[in-house]
């Protein structure tokens, strides 16, 4: 029957989709759902907020500026940057035990690691141990791609060149001074240390760097960063890795060491301490500040009051809003809210 065929050919398909009649869930945000929902969210947030707040409160932080701006500071002499190999000391006293594993951070202020040129000026191929790029670093490394004699710089670029090079030693002042051992392992991201950064496969390491020069601001080449520990040398030097992970904001801190020594594994006992600082890194020219931070951490990381307060505020906000809504609805009654 050709007529019938024609009919079926022309007639629109009668399917749920073509007729816009797909079965659908049609939720309505009614007060009946929203008010209990808000109460629940509010309670949960307040709970989390209290936990966060208390945790944050329990974290001990000791933050000390050692830029040497004030003349009273021991580091004042070094801040001008005229003295080579300047060493200064930072004294502090703990009246009670600094509990838990203590993390040693250094902090920089007004330092724009987040500057685009700063971050872009690096060659990840070099850093993953590709020796081809040792001889011809990427152009993005300019102006630290080649030195004046046209020797390639390894590691090239502004990022690497500007590596933080103050070093710290911590002593407890008890019967003279007792070194507090600082553990430099595990301060960098696992993935950076194990996958992203690789040393060239050559033994000894320095052979791979023939024909290259160190970044001009560095005092020693990259393969001599840690001669005592092979696994912490070259591109795998954890201080280097930490530095190469760019900070997000101009005031930042970076992990320097963990205090895990046998006597100090559960915290720093009360007493007097001194930090011996090899003051190399100039910050005064751009009005920067340097500090050391001692802190312990919790499940939420370092001390951060913001999260706890924010949770408490949002949680109470939810409760208040649900109360207001309840009053509004009790008063104006929306009969169909079952």
């Amino acid at each position, binding site marked *: 029957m050709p007529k019938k065929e024609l009919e079926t050919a022309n*007639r629109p398909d009668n399917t749920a989709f073509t007729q*816009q009649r797909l079965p659908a869930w*049609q939720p309505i945000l009614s007060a009946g759902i929203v008010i209990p929902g808000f109460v629940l969210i509010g309670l949960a947030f307040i709970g989390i907020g209290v936990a966060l707040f208390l945790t944050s409160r329990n974290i001990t932080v000791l933050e000390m500026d050692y830029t040497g701006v004030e003349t009273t500071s021991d580091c004042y002499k070094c801040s001008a940057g005229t003295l080579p190999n300047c060493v200064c000391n930072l004294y502090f006293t703990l009246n009670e035990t600094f509990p838990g594993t203590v993390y040693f951070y250094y902090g920089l202020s007004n330092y724009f690691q987040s500057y685009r040129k700063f971050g872009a000026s690096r060659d990840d*191929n070099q850093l993953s141990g590709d020796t081809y790029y040792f001889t011809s670093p990427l152009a993005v490394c300019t102006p630290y791609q080649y030195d004046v004699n046209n020797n390639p710089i390894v590691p090239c670029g502004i990022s690497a060149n*500007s590596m933080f090079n103050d070093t710290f030693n911590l002593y407890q002042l008890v019967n003279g001074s007792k070194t507090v051992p600082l553990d430099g392992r595990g301060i960098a991201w*696992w993935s950076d240390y194990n996958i*992203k950064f690789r040393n060239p496969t050559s033994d000894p390491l320095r052979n791979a760097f023939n024909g290259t020069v160190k970044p001009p601001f560095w005092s020693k080449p990259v393969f001599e960063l840690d001669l005592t520990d092979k696994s912490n040398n070259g591109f795998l030097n954890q201080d280097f890795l930490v530095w190469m992970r760019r900070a997000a904001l101009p005031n930042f*801190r970076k992990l320097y060491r963990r205090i895990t020594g046998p006597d100090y594994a559960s915290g720093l006992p009360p007493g007097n301490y001194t930090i011996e600082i090899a003051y190399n890194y100039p910050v005064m020219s751009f009005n920067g500040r340097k500090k050391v931070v001692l802190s312990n951490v919790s499940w939420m990381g370092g001390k951060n009051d913001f999260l706890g307060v924010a949770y408490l505020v*949002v949680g109470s906000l939810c409760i208040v*809003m649900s109360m207001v809504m309840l009053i509004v609805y009790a008063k104006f009654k929306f009969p169909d809210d079952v």
Partner: protein
Amino acid sequence: TLCSHMRTLRVDSRTIYVGHRPCHDPEAFIPPKFCDNRIVSSKYTVWNFLPKNLFEQFRRIANFYFLIIFLVQVIVDTPTSPVTSGLPLFFVITVTAIKQGYEDWLRHKADNEVNKYLVTVLEDGQRMRKESEKIKVGDVVEVVEDETFPCDLVLLRSSREDETCFVTTASLDGESNHKTHYTVPDMEQDLLSLNATIECEQPQPDLYKFVGRMHMYRNNQESLGPENLLLKGATLKNTEKIYGVAVYSGMETKMALNYQGKSQKRSAVEKSINAFLLVYLCILVSKALVCTTLKYVWQSQPVFFSVPTEIGLKYNLMYLKMFTDFLSFMVLFNFIIPVSMYVTVEMQKFLGSFFISWDKDFFDPEIQEGALVNTSDLNEELGQVEYVFTDKTGTLTQNNMEFIECCIDGRQFVFHCCIPSLVLLVSVNPSPCGDNEKEELFLRALCLCHTVQVKEPAGREDGLGGAPGDQVDGVLGQDGAKCHPAELRGFIASSPDEVALVIGAMKYGFTFLGMESNSMKVMNRNNEVETYQLLHVLNFDPVRRRMSVIVRSKSGDTMLFCKGADSSIFPRVRQHEVERIRMHVERNATEGYRTLCVAYKLLKPEEYALVDTELREARLSLQDREDKLLKVYNQVEDNMSLIGATAVEDRLQEEAAETMEALQGAGMRVWVLTGDKMETAKSTCYACRLFQRGTELLELTVRTLEDGGRNREDRLHELLLDYHKRAVQDAPPVKAGVTRSGQSPGDYGFIIDGATLSLVLNSSTDSDCYKTLFLKICQNCTSVLCCRMAPLQKAQIVKLVKCSKGSPITLSIGDGANDVSMILEAHVGIGIKGKEGRQAVRNSDYAIPKLKHLKKLLLAHGHLYYVRIAHLVQYFFYKNLCFILPQFLYQFFCGYSQQPLYDAAYLTMYNICFTSMPILAYSLVEQHICMEALLENAALYRDVAKNAMLRWGPFSYWTLLGVYQGLLFFFGVRFLFGNPALQDNGQVFGNWSYGTIVFTVLVFTVTLKLALDTRYWTWVNHFVIWGSLAFYTFFSFFWGGIIWPFLRQQRLYFVFANMLSSVAAWLVIILLIILSLLPEILLQVLRKPRGTHSRQVLHTHTHTHTDRYYPHKHTHTHRHTHTHTHTHRQVLPPQTHRHTDTHTDRYYPHTHTHTHTHRQVPHTDRYYPHTHTQTGTTHRQVLPPHTHTDRYHTHTHTHTHTHTDGHRQVIILANKSLVKRTSL
């Protein structure tokens, strides 16, 4: 002499040498050059496709903008690689190019099919097979039956004896009737030796106009008209073969000239998008400016490390550097205007338009067709219509004519269909008998004065054909048996009125048998065949509003029969005859019938001879033929005698009144623009409930103007001022969009006719003042009726309203060729697939089979499309604002160095992959209110009227939301990063972690925001919303989990995984998402009343509940419609009362909400005036006692309605069907 004459031709005509044979003077023969017969509808060739297509695509402002951004990225040192904007742009351009290329390929294919078609050409006495494209102007072409003509031909020879051929032009103008075309008169028999030239006008697109002259060797001249021209695209029917000479070829044929593109219509939404775009461009530029300025302020201070490249440039280069910095910022922030928005909008429109053509409610079983979408650009405009301009005939009415009665010489005759009687004429008024002669003359006039053809094949197949005598018997036999032999006879005409009249005459005993070699055969009541020689047809035209034929009877009398509108006939007949008939005509018109008057005139032989020569001369003239013809026609059709009048009923379209009511309920104003006369149109308006009993009619017609007996202009001025005072100044202030709730006191209807309208529009004095007055009055009236409109006037009115203050969105709907101009003029043009050909459909934006479909098209589809696209646009701007704002804020923390906050992959993929699918799905399937509710409650349409969702209010709300969320994202994470040691092993997070946290919050928030807005969660929504989030998570893992060899910097390596290992990051993500969405949730709850409203409507219609003990699901819909039906015409609209009761079942916990819709039709009876007094309020107060049983799937509902007048009604329903209704 002939050729010398030819050489002095005017340039606006062309000369064709038939068969390329020059006339006597071979030296003077310069073969004229014409274009070849190739049809080229394609735009590109293989060679120019790439450059031409690219050029066209980049002419679009958006594409050009993105190209510029891309080029800047390539040239200037910018933070993001050119890939981030190049890839999406490339994708968009490629997809568009492929689509356009494919479409062009299809056009090439279609062209080739036509161009390579083999045709037969007579060449030097040989019949040659040639490809159609090789035909040259002047070739003599042979066409056989059922072939289409390869080019425009002048018919030279036909195989039919009467020198005619039949043609159907269905593919040209949709008219499927067979049209007769004639060979050139006095044609030589031998085409091979024919030596002739044709002189005709230059190609022009009008299908129905052709003027030419043929000069033959024998030195005689013949005039050529459209009846001699066979158009390319038409098909030869009922004729074995014909020969014709090509006069127009290829792109110069009338068909090709008619298929040129229409101008593009742009929707209001698009204009809003452009306005928003401008705002965002300003935001973009100011952001870039702020950053550039601050960068240089900041750099003038000591910075953290000395980069020789950054500072210390010479001053002359400094400005260049600043400029490139500015561009660089522009590139960084350019994602605020994404390419993908344009793609998504296009896709939404394209895919969304399928829902219209797919809708089975638009399918009309009669014509086996559904709705047709000619453009998808205007979908949302359907939800914005403020003015509806509708044609009457064929749109409001069915254009299905039925002969109702006639009036002969002042006596009225009504045809009684089913009373088998020999005397078919029933005289209503007892008549002074006799006068049969007048009756017969009248019926003969009806049989002769028309251009109807008899459908031949039907007769032949039935075996009735052949000799006319047989046909007569056949028809006679059937006639006795059935009342409607029309279907059997099969008349074809361009106007259904004519068919109705011929059929009417047939019922009275005079049957038109058809044409045979220029003579018309009519069978009279005594079954005798009368033959009349057809001398001239004075065709119908809308200016004269009448048509005539001149015939010669066997007895040698030459008669002129004329039929036409009363206004055009009355002045041309003897005045004393008029009065008796005028009464009838007016009464019929008030009843809503179409009336025609019939007049005749006996021509004396010398009179006829004069007329004949004049007509021939006028037809021969090349210049001003129309005017000359008109003059002759007017001269001939004068001083006639009036025989009678006919009344033909044109029934209202199905649900015409309901549709009109719904449109008005939706806040639209309906204007009826018709060529019909006022009385007829007015009654149609009443029948459609456009005018109501309480409507005060303001008339501005020739009649009212002439009432005062004064100068028309003065009177017009006076009336306009008066109406203005009544309708505009004194009227209570009408709220925008609200026109009618019941019958408000200030309910005005306005009536104007064509003549007055042209007076208003073209008035010599203060024409602008009149125009504005007129417009103001009309805009304050609920309905406006414009009658006796010429097609162009219809367009003029549309234009007037379109360009008035506030530029309201207009919609024109019509079915005929005379509506094309207004369909093209209005913002949205709707064609009805009616009986008057396909011209309206071809020129429309949307075509629907019936008027009633307009309701769903506007109220449901239009409303939904508008909401969808408006939401889409707002959402796109919003999501890109809160995407880019954190990146802008980050500049303050990175020394204005154009450091991107997000990784390049995120920047690229955000709009393409992570957030595009949910909004696309939303914009295709969302139904914030379900379709039934939209249809049921027309007032919902007003919620979106006047571009409500895309005005500056909602736009600033969305923008503020974007700013709020953007600030929240950035600063929330900023405070978290006050101490970047966020992992429990003391390690710190860097800048990419920062960006990734912000980005994660962003993606989740904008997706969940959409989820909050979604009211209609189908599996598609679930799939894309949760799928997008899952894809984002998966992608981030994947992107950061592998060392990608092609990446220069593995910036995101392990960042995402590390982020997830931090509890603080999780907590901040959750916190920020919830905090961002809080205001939105609150607002939605506070907006509750609207939500309830729509839900209530929604729930009353479908109600699903599950039974605990007898697990089953059923949906039942209750809708009771009580309609008081009256046999006579109902003039007033129904009032709808709804009352709702809710009850809960104790044992099977579920809630039922029943709404009873009482459609009560208050009415006035013309003969027994009384009014129904039941009103909505009393009705509502009486809530019915309600029983409801639910046992074993059987539902019995007993509704008892107690009316105030004590009359009780019990309705028992089982499941869906009405079981019993008792009135007590």
